[in-house]
Every structure is written in structure tokens, then in C-alpha cells.
């Protein structure tokens, strides 16, 4: 037993110390944090420069409507002619010249002259204000009271509330459940694939460098295989843990240090897209609500169960597939020969991943049930279903089958492995593998 510990230690340390591991571990969270923070940063940075927009508005109808914002300042040029304003543009510090002709009420055409292409943010900001005024004007002309209009505006927001067996009510969100399930499934898929392939490459390395003969004169082949699988599994868990910790740290630090006064903007931009948040003056109430909803429905999910299942299904899926990967590595002489055996292993994984998108639409259906029970696909599919709460018996059945299957596959892989690692220069096919399975050495 001491020996398997040594193997785990070597497999773990030799990978954790690698530059590529350190870079990936540090870069991963930076990228993730950037993905979260960048939209917010773009918005806040865009706000920093003041843009002067010169307005030519003969009717003066819009003088009171065009209100300055942090980034856009209006300058009323009064009766100045467009041609003059254009001439003056070079010497001025104008960002753009806005011409609102009299005909705007009929066709909605407004012209904006500038040297550079005006930003979407500025364009949206201005057109919003003008549109509002035009709408108000039209309503007035048709004799509709604005207050009535506001009163009949409706916004339907279905809050989903579930009963527990005890009768307690919980507010939930289908969208959040979908997101949580899908992210968990993608991560399991990725990690099983990347690190399963690492196990395979490790086996091939030992075989081609011929160090294998020395190793198995010291330890049992099965110990060696399991040591490698467990060691690499621990590398995954380490990377995973570090990613979570680092991402959280970076996000919090960035939030407080980079933008101390604008955490509100950050929150909004996390839930809205850039354009919406650029015009947030009009609809400030919604994002706050959403954040609140996200947190209540997250809080109402069974987070410990989800985390437990994630770890369980990751480990189960990883053990199942990596032992098969190890067997492939043992059966071939070099990496280019792995193709023919890789296919039957990657098909269920990819199938599960593709199916996940259908499953998420209908997590209670027949298809969902079977794919979350069959062990080859259950690690991915069950994770999609878990946020929607799965009957306990299904969960237990799926987990038990997964455990039984990975015991089966490791046993099988162990047999192929022990024969394969000492076999050189032989083109191996499935018939040959079947023969190895029946050896009793």
C-alpha cells in the first residue's frame, strides 16, 4: 500500500510542478474573471470621457428633452446653420453635430455628423431621448393620457415556486437551474476528456520509454495503473479548487479595488448586456430585482447536494473513463495508434454532451431518465438534471450503477493493461484485446 502512495505522489508532484499546470491554473481564473468583469469595465471606462454633442434644432422642441449624462454633454447651437457648424467643427472640441430637422416628427430622421464613427452607446442614448419625446408628442396629439398608458404597461414575470414534501414553499428559477446544470455538465465533460487523455499519455510514456519493465518488477501493474489514475485525479481536484478560490479572489479584489464606487454598474453589467446598461437610466429597477432573484433561487437550491453530486459524478466519470484510457495507452505503442480505440470511448462522451442540450429542455423526460441512468453518459446528463431535483431512487440507482461500472471497467482495464504494457511491436485489434481479457496471469 505504501508503494501505491509513492506512485500517487510522483504522478501528482510531477504534474503539479509543471509550468503548463501552473500557467493554466493561474490563467484560467484570470480569463474567467476577465469574462465576468470585462463588460463592466468597458461600460465604466466608456463613461470616463466627456463628449460634446452640438445640437441644431430649429423647432427648439427638443431643448428641454436632451438632458446631459455623465458622458454626453449637449451644446445648443441655436439658429446656427449646419454649414457654419460644419466649418466650425475643426476648431471646436465637438464630438458630433446633431441635426434634428423639423420633419423628424413625420419620418424620425435625425442626422449626426462627426469625424469618427460615433459609439453605439452615444447613439442609443440620444435616440432614446428623442424617441421618448416623439412618442409623448404623438400620444398628446391623439389625445391619449400618458398616465393611462403607463398604467396599462405590463410586464409578466413568472416566479416559479415549488413545494417541498413538508409543504414549505421555495422560490426557484428555471433559468438558473439550467445554467447551473449546464455549467456542471460542461466542466465534467471537459475534465474527463482532458485528464483521461493525460492518463493515457502517461501510460504510453512509460511504455515507450521502457521504464515500465523496472516499475512492474517493483509494483503490481494494477497498483501502477491505479496510482496513476488517482494521482492525476488529485491534480484535477487541485486545479479545480485553485480555480474556484482564485476566481473568487480576483473577482472580489477587482470589484473593490478597481471600481470602488461602481459596484452597482458591475452587478448590472453582469446580468445585462452592454447596450442595456448604457441606457440604464430608463429602467433601473429590473437588474436589482434579477440579482435578488438569482440569489434567492440559488439559495433555495440544494447547493450541498449539487456540490456533492458534482464531485461524485466527476470522480465516477473520471475513474470510469480514465481506466479505459489507461487500457488504450497500454495496448498501443505510440499515440498515433490510439485512434481506433479512442472512438468507442469518445462517442458516449460526445453523445452525452450533445444530448445535454436536449435534456435541459425537458429534464424529466424518458430520454433524460435513461441517459442519466446509463453509466457511460450519467456523469454528464445527471448533472444537467440535478438542479431540477431528481427523485432520490433515480439518483441512487444512477450512482450505484456508476460505481459498479467503474469497478468493472477498472478490472477490465487492469487486465488489458498488464498484458499490453509488456507487448511491443504488435498491431493490436479488438480480437487481441478480448484474448488479453481472458488471460489469467
Amino acid at each position: 500500500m505504501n508503494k501505491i502512495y509513492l506512485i500517487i505522489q510522483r504522478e501528482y508532484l510531477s504534474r503539479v510542478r509543471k509550468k503548463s499546470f501552473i500557467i493554466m491554473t493561474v490563467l484560467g481564473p484570470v480569463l474567467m474573471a476577465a469574462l465576468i468583469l470585462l463588460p463592466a469595465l468597458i461600460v465604466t471606462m466608456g463613461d470616463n470621457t466627456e463628449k460634446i454633442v452640438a445640437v441644431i434644432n430649429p423647432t427648439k422642441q427638443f431643448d428641454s428633452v436632451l438632458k446631459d449624462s455623465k458622458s454626453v454633454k449637449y451644446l445648443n447651437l441655436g439658429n446656427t446653420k449646419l454649414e457654419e457648424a460644419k466649418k466650425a467643427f475643426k476648431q471646436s472640441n465637438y464630438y458630433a453635430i446633431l441635426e434634428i430637422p423639423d420633419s423628424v416628427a413625420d419620418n424620425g430622421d435625425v442626422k449626426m455628423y462627426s469625424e469618427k464613427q460615433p459609439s453605439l452607446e452615444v447613439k442609443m442614448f440620444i435616440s432614446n431621448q428623442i424617441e421618448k419625446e416623439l412618442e409623448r408628442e404623438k400620444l398628446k396629439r391623439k389625445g391619449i393620457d400618458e398616465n393611462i398608458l403607463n398604467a396599462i404597461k405590463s410586464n409578466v414575470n413568472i416566479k416559479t415556486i415549488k413545494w417541498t414534501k413538508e409543504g414549505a414553499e421555495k422560490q426557484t428559477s428555471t433559468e438558473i437551474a439550467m445554467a447551473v446544470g449546464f455549467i456542471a455538465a460542461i466542466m465534467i465533460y471537459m475534465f474527463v476528456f482532458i485528464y483521461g487523455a493525460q492518463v493515457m499519455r502517461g501510460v504510453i510514456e512509460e511504455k515507450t520509454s521502457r521504464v515500465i519493465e523496472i516499475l512492474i518488477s517493483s509494483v503490481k501493474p494494477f497498483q501502477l495503473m491505479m496510482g496513476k489514475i488517482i494521482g492525476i485525479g488529485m491534480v484535477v481536484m487541485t486545479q479545480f479548487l485553485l480555480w474556484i478560490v482564485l476566481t473568487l479572489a480576483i473577482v472580489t479584489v477587482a470589484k473593490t479595488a478597481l471600481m470602488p464606487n461602481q459596484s452597482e454598474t458591475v452587478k448590472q453589467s453582469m446580468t445585462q448586456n452592454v447596450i442595456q446598461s448604457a441606457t440604464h437610466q430608463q429602467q433601473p429597477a429590473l437588474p436589482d430585482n434579477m440579482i435578488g432573484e438569482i440569489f434567492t433561487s440559488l439559495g433555495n437550491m440544494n447547493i450541498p447536494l449539487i456540490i456533492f453530486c458534482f464531485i461524485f459524478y466527476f470522480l465516477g466519470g473520471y475513474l470510469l473513463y480514465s481506466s479505459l484510457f489507461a487500457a488504450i495507452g497500454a495496448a498501443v505503442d505510440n499515440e498515433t495508434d490510439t485512434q481506433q480505440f479512442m472512438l468507442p470511448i469518445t462517442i458516449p462522451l460526445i453523445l452525452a454532451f450533445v444530448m445535454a442540450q436536449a435534456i435541459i429542455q425537458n429534464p424529466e423526460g424518458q430520454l433524460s431518465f435513461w441517459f442519466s441512468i446509463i453509466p457511460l453518459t450519467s456523469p454528464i446528463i445527471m448533472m444537467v438534471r440535478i438542479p431540477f431535483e431528481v427523485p432520490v431512487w433515480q439518483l441512487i440507482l444512477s450512482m450505484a450503477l456508476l460505481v459498479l461500472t467503474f469497478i468493472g471497467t477498472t478490472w477490465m482495464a487492469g487486465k488489458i493493461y498488464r498484458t499490453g504494457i509488456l507487448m511491443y511491436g504488435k498491431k493490436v485489434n479488438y480480437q487481441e484485446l478480448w484474448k488479453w481479457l481472458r488471460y489469467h496471469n
Partner: protein
Amino acid sequence: MDFFVAQDIVKRYADQLALDKVGINVKEGTIFGLLGPNGAGKTTLIRIINQITAPDEGQVYFAGEKLKNSHVDQIGYLPEERGLYKKMKIGEQALYLAQLKGISRTDALKKLKYWFEKFEIQSWWDKKVEELSKGMQQKVQFIITVLHSPKLLIFDEPFSGFDPINASLMKDEILNLKKQGSTIIFSTHNMSSVEELCDDIALIDKGRTILKGDIKDIKKTYKTNIFEVSFQGDLDKLKNIAPEHFSVDKMSSYDHTLTAQIRILNSLSTNELLTHIMKCGNIISFNEIVPSMNDIFIKVVGENK
């Protein structure tokens, strides 16, 4: 006393019989030559000793006990196809492999320092294997094999890849290990090194032991009663002096000196033979032609076809 015994070992692979009732006895503190042509089953037998694979039939005893799992720690194995982790540093790798053989890290470190100093390779400690030449890698591999002071050492073609200087250095080390009490199984195709090093041998061919025993006894049995004599005199006279007692086979002449191989046909003693030759000329040298292991190997394996 026999330190290692294998009795009636049978090992079948799906479509062939790799070992068919093979038996070897290795005496404690000796060097045992395991010989045989390619594909004879030597590697299979070595793998059985290392418990990499198990025999289908037969018994294996190690130091008087039935071979069991814990014995692998007392065996050092230098495989023919050798290799190390290419990207791992030498020192770290040697420590790891020694620990896998069951010795503690501190012990391994102490012994490793001793060997590195002995071979004057301390500067290699932090080098990766891929940075070393093949010969250098072999040296490291040799150290790793003997590092945990095993009672039984198995060397499979230990001198391949070494230049003559390093090969003789390794030879001395192997003899040294023998002196310190290690029992050594030595497998090679290089018959001259077998004659230099081995006490006993077993010759395996097609999964069977076809010859085994003390190397001196074997040579004695394969003696062909041929003597080589160089003399200055009359060759025709020698041929006809006593044709019923001996025949003159090969001959050559160089600078008035004739060299002939003489085969004794009956129980003629060497003294009597010399008297016959003296009558024909002046003897310069006379010695018995002892068959080399190489000749015996070729003869025995050839007869086994």
C-alpha cells in the same frame, strides 16, 4: 546451498508453450548464466522470477521460501530493454525507483550518494535523463538496479551499450557484488563474458533446459581430445607414425614452423602423444584445445533442432 530454485516451470501463452518444464538452481553467492538463443524463453523465465507474470505450473523458491510478493524488494532487475523517465531528473528518479523497492528515502539518499561518488557522476544529479548519452543512462540504470542492495540480482545483457572501458568497469562491479554475497543471474549472448564471470549455467532452447551445470564440468564433457602442436620437422612422418592412435587434422605453416591439430582416437595419454611427435621434429608449443562456450552453445543448440 541453493538460493533460488525453479522447478518444472510451465508457461503457456495463447498459442504457444513458452516454457516447458524448465528448472534452474542458483547457488548462493554465485553468478549463474542464463543462456539461450533469441526467443528461447529466457525473458519469460526472468519475468516469472520478478513476479511480473506467474507460471502456469511448477514451483519457485526464493531463499528457501516459496516465492511471494514481498520478495520483489530483494530482487534487483536490469532489463534488456531499459529506459527511464526522460523528463525526470536523475537524482529524483533514482530515489523514486529505490523507494518503490521498499527502502526509505534517507537510506536511498545515502546509498545513492555512495554510488554517485564511486562512479564520479555527482554532477548528473539534477540532469534530466534525455540530456545524457546512452552509455551514461546505462550507468544510472545500473546504479538503480543495485541501489537497494538486493540479495538476488538479475542482469539481462548488462554490457550492451557500454564502451570497453565502462564494460570492464561494470564487470568489476558485478564481481564485487558477488564478493559481497549477492547472488546473480546473468543473461547474455556474449559467451566470452559468460566464461569470465559465471560459475554455473543453464542453456534454454525452445522452452526447455537443454544443458545445465558447473561451467567447468560442462567444458570437460564437451572436450574433444584435440591438441594443437607447433613444431619444426617432418609432417608426413607425423601423419604416418601412429595413425591408429591419432589423426592430424588442420595444419598451417609459417616461417618453417608447422602448426597442426591432433585428435586422439583412443586412450593415448598426452605423454605418449608427445613422444610420438618428438620423433618427428622439434616441439615449440603444445596445448589442449578446450571448447569455448561459444562452440558449445552452437553445438548444443544446433543439435536440438
